[in-house]
């Protein structure tokens, strides 16, 4: 029993709002220095979880401990720093904003300045240091928000969808910078997001939060690739979720579990036996999505647009064959075989490559 206690541990946490339970977590540990991503859809309870972990919201039941000791929200807040979804900056200069947390903690002015300068440089904000915070773009403001949190050198950094409101290029750039910083610091990080790519880019471990409960937790790669049920699969970007019966028909072998497969792993073959019919074609820019009806089941198939255009004259009504790579099809062990027919999704709300 020599293993040190985790940095932060949530035990038997329940959060109720009105007469609804919005979060129920039996146990969640965050170890020193690791990055843990919590993946969840909107309304899954991600922000609530983050706020409980950061001492920003008192759980209805349960406790949070720091280094093995039960801690009050105020004690937790002394250890953590958080970056919320929207960058909430104070009036004043960028530099003053980066110094905000240090000011709260009574750090002397010289030290404040030094640490602020360091993080302004690190996040490429130096040229903006003396600008008014309310003149920044969304991406710049979120950078300031990150610098402000990092300047505190917290033991635990809490990030609540910090990239949620940013456009794709800004998001990618900031995500890369964040990954570099996290890789070289010993700050533990709890990142909540609905985007598996953010988790893949930053997190050592990931967990899936669905309807207020944790469903899967483990090394990020393993969690992302092995959804245990339809809800997790959907969140992790598996576009096609097939009931056992549907899966049996599409894959041509008898299965007693539901199956999830990404649209990118369903390849169109216009020269095959033509068992399927294209119902719709949806150009998404980088890729083109086809909705194919096969054996009475709708399957989404994504093809990179240049490749799609090389396929001869596909249009709604064209008969095609679908090749599904069996090694990419995931059986969902926790889905209930007897449940109502699983549906495929006709309208994507998740970005795909």
């Amino acid at each position, binding site marked *: 029993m020599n293993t040190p206690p985790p940095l932060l541990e949530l035990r038997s946490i329940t959060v109720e709002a009105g007469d609804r339970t919005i979060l129920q977590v039996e146990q969640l540990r965050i170890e020193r220095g690791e990055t843990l991503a919590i993946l969840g859809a909107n309304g899954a309870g991600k922000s609530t979880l983050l706020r409980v972990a950061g001492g920003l919201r008192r759980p209805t039941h349960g406790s949070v401990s720091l280094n093995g000791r039960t801690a009050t929200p105020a004690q937790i*807040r002394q250890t953590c720093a958080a970056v*919320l979804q*929207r960058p909430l900056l104070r009036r004043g200069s960028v530099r003053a904003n980066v110094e905000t947390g240090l000011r*709260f903690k009574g750090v002397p002015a010289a030290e404040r300045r030094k640490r602020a300068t360091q993080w302004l440089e690190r996040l490429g904000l130096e040229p903006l240091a003396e600008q008014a915070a309310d003149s920044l773009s969304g991406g710049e403001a979120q950078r300031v928000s990150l610098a402000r949190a990092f300047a505190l050198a917290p033991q635990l950094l809490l990030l609540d969808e910090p990239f949620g409101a940013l456009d794709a290029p800004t998001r990618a750039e900031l995500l890369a910078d964040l990954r570099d910083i996290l890789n070289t610091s010993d700050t533990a990080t709890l990142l909540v997001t609905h985007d598996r790519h953010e988790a893949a880019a930053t997190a050592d471990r990931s967990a899936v939060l669905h309807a207020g409960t944790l469903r899967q937790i483990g090394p990020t790669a393993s969690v992302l690739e092995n959804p245990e049920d339809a809800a997790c699969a959907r969140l992790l970007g598996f576009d096609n979720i097939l009931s056992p019966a549907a899966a049996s028909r599409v894959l041509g072998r008898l299965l007693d579990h539901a199956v999830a497969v990404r649209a990118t792993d369903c390849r169109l073959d216009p020269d095959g036996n033509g068992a399927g019919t294209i119902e719709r074609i949806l150009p998404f820019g980088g890729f083109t999505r086809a909705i194919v009806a096969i054996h009475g089941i709708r399957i989404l198939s994504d093809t990179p647009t240049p490749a799609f255009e090389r396929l001869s004259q596909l249009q709604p009504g064209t008969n095609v064959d679908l090749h599904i790579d069996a090694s990419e099809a995931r059986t969902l062990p926790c889905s209930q075989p007897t449940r109502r027919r699983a549906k495929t999704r006709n309208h994507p709300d998740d970005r795909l490559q």
Partner: protein
Amino acid sequence: MQVLWDAVTEAFRLLLSGDGETWEIIARSLRISLTATALALVLGLPVSAALAFGRFPGRRIVLALVNTGMGVPPVVAGLVIIVLLWRSGPLGALGLLYTPTAMVIAQTAIALPLVAGFSTAALQHVDPDFRVQMQALGAGRLRSLWTVAAEARLPLLAAGMAGFGAVISEVGAALMVGGNIAGQTRVLTTAAVLEASKGAFALALALGIILLVIAFAVNLVVTAVQQHGRA
């Protein structure tokens, strides 16, 4: 029109000639109304913080009371205060009736709902997550409230100005609880009413003009502070 012109010249004569009584009345008006405004801020800001951020039983009722209070005529406030301060009233032992203190109390009662109401709106206008974010950076409860107030300082100043504007210009309560006693509780508004009742309309109007000049000057100072540092 002659009266208007007389009033303007009289106002400037009173101000510029250093008329002792006029300046004394101006000083008294400012002292009473600024004190009442300051008191209303000291009492009203915690109330508005509780209303903006607290969730307690009766919150809606208090909010409704505050909003109703914003429209209470000064005379009504004056009546309530005078009944309390009467010798035969519950606070009669304090002997405060017909003193500047009584006027401060009445004007505080008038300004309080205004200050509390406008301040609550000002604080609620700040993103509710702002305070959470400040706490997430290590600010304690009061410190985080303070940051929200600092963020809302422009509308909070406006709340203070609304309170001051209401009390410096009200006459009903000042007359009732102050008694308009020369050298003790006579302020610009009550002096103007007295002169008007004597039929000295030019002088009354001159006092009114002085009142406007004073209110304008105070608001100018506050506005300058408010807009300071705004590009």
